[in-house]
């Protein structure tokens, strides 16, 4: 794929390097001349364009019309909105992704119809919150902007499902157990699998059912 990334800050740079490792074609745009010069001497195989990506001429220089995905990763939200707007509405790019620097600016991304705003601050805040809380449930992965979650649930001694076999357990709809981790063992569950205290359960659940799932596995929320 061909991917254009606007903004060669830490995020843009890491992203460019990773995409390059996955054999994608990458072009980085940044308006800082010195940064561009130093990147150009350091990075092989990544096209670097020095310019302001909120100008259509600069995007055109990056061959934006051939792009599969455009990423607006600058540190200014107004610039990211304009870049994604240009890519989508002016150049007709189907997949645009945009970094949100300040969660307070999310409504503007929404009103300007930016397709995939990624709010890194809120994502990190959620991860830290989950790590910091002593909950027995941990979100491992969010899919479709958090609508589907893969969670890990540690089964406590007093769990209502402890020592029961799976066929006798009633799970909320829209939830499914994927596997049971028991020490070094990984069990792919079937109806006869028995849940033991200390098991770690990996489950997939729609976000609305997460609380119900927690309640049925742990007994409390």
């Amino acid at each position, binding site marked *: 794929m061909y991917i254009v990334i606007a903004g060669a800050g830490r995020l843009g740079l890491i992203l460019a390097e990773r995409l390059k490792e996955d054999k994608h074609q990458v072009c980085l745009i940044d308006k800082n001349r010195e940064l561009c010069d130093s990147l150009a001497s350091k990075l092989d195989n990544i096209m670097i364009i020095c310019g302001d990506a*909120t*100008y*259509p*001429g600069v995007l055109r220089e990056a061959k934006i019309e051939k792009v599969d995905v455009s990423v607006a990763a600058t540190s*200014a*939200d*107004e*610039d990211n*909105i*304009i870049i994604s707007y*240009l890519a989508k509405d*002016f150049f007709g790019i189907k997949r645009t992704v945009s970094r949100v620097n*300040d969660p*307070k*600016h999310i*409504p*503007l991304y929404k*009103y*300007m119809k930016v397709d995939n705003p990624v709010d890194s601050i809120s994502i990190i805040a959620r991860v830290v919150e989950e790590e910091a809380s002593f909950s027995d449930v941990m979100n491992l992965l969010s899919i479709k902007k958090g609508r589907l979650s893969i969670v890990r649930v540690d089964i406590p001694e007093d769990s209502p499902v402890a020592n029961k076999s799976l066929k006798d357990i009633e799970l909320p709809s829209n939830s499914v157990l994927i596997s049971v981790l028991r020490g070094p063992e990984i069990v792919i569950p079937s109806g006869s699998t028995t849940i033991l205290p200390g098991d770690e359960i990996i489950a997939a659940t729609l976000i609305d059912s997460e609380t119900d799932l927690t309640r049925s596995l742990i007994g409390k929320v």
Partner: protein
Amino acid sequence: MKYVIIVGCSRAGRALAQELSSKENVVVIDKSLKNLDLLKEDFNGKKIWADALDVVTLEKAGIKEADALFLLTGNDNLNLVVGKVAKRKYKTEKVVLQVNDAMKKKIFGEEGLTIINKTYLLGEVLKKCIL
């Protein structure tokens, strides 16, 4: 009395705010306190020291009731984004914004947005002087 919101309290915004505030209901937003402090004592309006890209700021400034919104920050992209949102989301009647790049003016222009390009205006005035 008209209800006017001015975003950007640098030279142009400040002069406009100062003058309008004697007759109209004026709210000035700027993210720099220094700029707001430069308004003279006879400024008879409200100052909001905050980020205009935050809709909470816009709503606090009364965007839902405003008759006009002037976007006069030096940041073309901010002016454009806030101007478009005011028009689309809050249906502000008059939205006037300063955009210094002619190309952007052409691309982002839409019905109901008055986009002013300082350089172009100055050029027109200068041309008139020699005619």
